[in-house]
């Protein structure tokens, strides 16, 4: 990996006043002389401030702030896949394709993305609205398959619900996060099968008893 494979980005980068204050709070968490430990949260902060990607100027800025050699920051930023070293779409569609999601149909989810947006993993739409990437386990396997859209999870997807999700985004609306098949959080599909009275008291319909 080298800088020549990524866009140059802006010449300079600086935290906004709010982010600077936050960065200082983060740095203060680490003992004196161990400030470099703050590199990961600071890179995350910089990425959030900068349209979800890290230009070289931002990495150099963080290096300067923490007194690290810039190469040490490039190493961290290029090691972790959640730092984007290239611009990504406004909607960053991270499709989990690790085994549980794959067994539950993540191929369908990716295919739906391709159908709807015309792009495959690692690509960005021409209008810069969408980037699709494959990610490893998003940690929500119980609701597999899963998309994490920027910071928000959309779960229990299949082809049509993925397309519906993307349609909502294309219309400029915000889809409802969480399971897309009517399930409540990670409760059983069709409603709870245990603690049914409590569920009823809370206004939730339990699964029909056979």
């Amino acid at each position, binding site marked *: 990996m*080298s*800088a020549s494979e990524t866009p140059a980005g802006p010449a300079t980068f600086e935290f906004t006043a709010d982010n600077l204050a936050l960065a200082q709070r983060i740095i203060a968490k680490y003992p004196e002389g161990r400030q470099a430990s703050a590199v990961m949260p600071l890179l995350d902060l910089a990425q959030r401030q900068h349209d979800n990607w890290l230009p070289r100027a931002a990495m150099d800025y963080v290096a300067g702030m923490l007194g690290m050699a810039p*190469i*040490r920051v*490039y190493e961290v930023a*290029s*090691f972790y896949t959640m730092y984007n070293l290239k611009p990504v779409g406004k909607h960053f569609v991270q499709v989990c394709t690790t085994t549980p999601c794959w067994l539950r149909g993540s191929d369908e989810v990716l295919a739906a993305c391709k159908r709807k947006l015309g792009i495959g993993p690692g690509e960005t739409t021409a209008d810069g609205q969408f980037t699709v990437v494959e990610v490893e386990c998003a940690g929500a396997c119980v609701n597999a398959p899963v998309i994490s859209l920027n910071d928000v999870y959309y779960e229990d997807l299949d082809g049509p619900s993925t397309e519906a999700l993307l349609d909502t985004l294309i219309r400029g609306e915000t889809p409802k996060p969480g399971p897309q098949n009517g399930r409540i959080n990670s409760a059983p599909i069709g409603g709870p099968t245990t603690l049914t009275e409590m569920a009823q008291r809370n206004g939730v319909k339990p699964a029909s008893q056979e």
Partner: protein
Amino acid sequence: MPKLTIDGIELEVAPGTSVLQACEQLGIEVPRFCYHEKLSVPANCRMCLVEMEKAPKPIASCAMPCGEGMVIKTDTDTVHKARKGVMEFLLINHPLDCPICDQGGECDLQDQAVGYGFDRGRYGEEKRAVKDKNLGPLIKTIMTRCIHCTRCIRFSDEIAGVSVMGATGRGEHMEIGTYVEAAVSSELSGNLVDVCPVGALTSKPYAFTARPWELRKTESVDVLDAVGSNIRIDTRGGEVLRILPRLNEAVNEEWISDKTRYAHDGLKRQRLDRPYIRENGKLRAASWEEALALTAAKLKGAAPEKIAAIAGDLADAESLLALKDLLGGMGVASLESRQDGSAIDAASRAGYIFNSTIAGIEQADQILLIGTNPRWEGALVNARIRKRYLQGGLTVTVLGPRVDLTFPIEHLGNDATLLNAIADGSHPYAETLKAAKKPLLILGSGALARPDGAAVWAAARAVAEACGLVREDWNGFNVLHRAASRVGALDLGFLPAKGGRDLAGILDGARKGEVEVVYLLGADEIDAQNFGRAFVIYQGHHGDRGAHRADVILPGAAYTEKNATYVNTEGRAQHTRQATFPVGEAREDWKIIRALSGALGKPLPYDTLQQLRKRLADANPVFAQVDRVTPAAWGAFGTAGAVAAAPFTLPVENFYMTDAISRASATMAECTEAFVSPAVAERTGTHG
């Protein structure tokens, strides 16, 4: 002191010794890639696996400290199988392009594959390929060959002190490089080529030049600065093809500077390969007889007061002594070896050497740098200070221009009068020095070349005496010279004798016509236009500044072409060894002077190098103590007086070009272009 058993042999080792080091003590060879004696231990290549009793699996011996009662086996089936496995994995992505690889014949991977490699590959998938990186004019990269040992990263971090190399990406996509594709800007960068165990980092100027088994190897000493780095000169057919470091823990450890390593292409350019005589303003080729006869006639024709000699920075002790014997015998008093105009003299040996020794830096806890940039004036001295800094508990304080060194500094300012203030205790830094256990000061050669150099010298002595730098068991007063010839010349007293002129006097005399003949023994750092109408004899090996002004040229030998003695800044006499013959009709320098003495009818009393070396040892016993430093007795030196308030200036503007050889080197010109010019442009705002 843990006791352990290795392959049935019991031994006791110092605490902290690793199993690999213990094996080495027994002469048991353990293959390794990532482990390097002078670098930290990452234990990431796994080639050094050995078996340890009671451990469930083989252990990495480089990272395992010896423990009491350990039982280690290095020669079992398990060990061999494990190492073979590691080797097979390393070779999976290796291009196996040894026939076109410059490392071939001296490659750790090649050698160890002979012992642990499989005779065919079992890997049928696609191999990975890595884009080559641009690391500047000295280092060529073929990154697909890289085995990710991270030695280069650790070298630049730890020894060179420039954190530019790193590993970006992860897993199969991990790559070694600088990420930003910048040249490695360090005066020690060439050592990366040596630390890389494979052919990923190789020498760019040496690319596709020779195979190691074709080379003749000569152990010698570098003269392009005053450190006296130990080197190996590799030649083929009378041509110096490369220069490598030679281990000497006392001097350069196992590193050399980029100038030492790469300036040798300057040995092939602008050489004086035959005598010349100036006629009607133009130099014409001449024979030795003619040139010597003319030189002798000119020397005979002038009164001794009208003759002067100036020795240059690359002059060896043998020729210095021969010239001194010859001209001194004729009554010439104006001998000068300080062509930078330095005020230093031979009053007390302790006043002009690096008393603490270079290795002694490792004991210091407080270092005061006076008017010097050790990175450029003695790169290996600087590396030693960094080594000491990494051990912790060292403060480096700078009095002089603020320079970018490879360790943090405290800056006292750049006011030379502070020296007096520290000496008389009115500056608080005096207390810091006094409180230090092993304080040390390094006085730059540039600080002594000021008009008030003698006063600076005396003030530095006063600091040393007042602040406890000179004690029974410790002498922290150090002068860092730049000229390889300087200490030897001072040891021989190649200085104005009574009634003789010093540098300024010689130049002044030449301008006024009071000095009629000037003998330049490789003196190239003086603006030659200063010699007025004097008859200039130039003896040396390059058509540099001195030769341009010469009226007669006596072609001499460069340091790779002669057996000669040089005394480094510590006062350590060392011998260069002849690796190739002088070019054309050029001759070893002392022999030229010997021949001239014959032409003058006053033959010098030595005909062989042995006789001359005997005379050297008689002149000063330090020349008999080869490769050793004899502690010098403290004495008075310098001239007490007011130090001017003028700031110190640094004598080296361009590390890569400091002498006739490096100025002729194309590689050094490229380095200047890559590293020095951009910096100068930035400073002066003439960029772009």
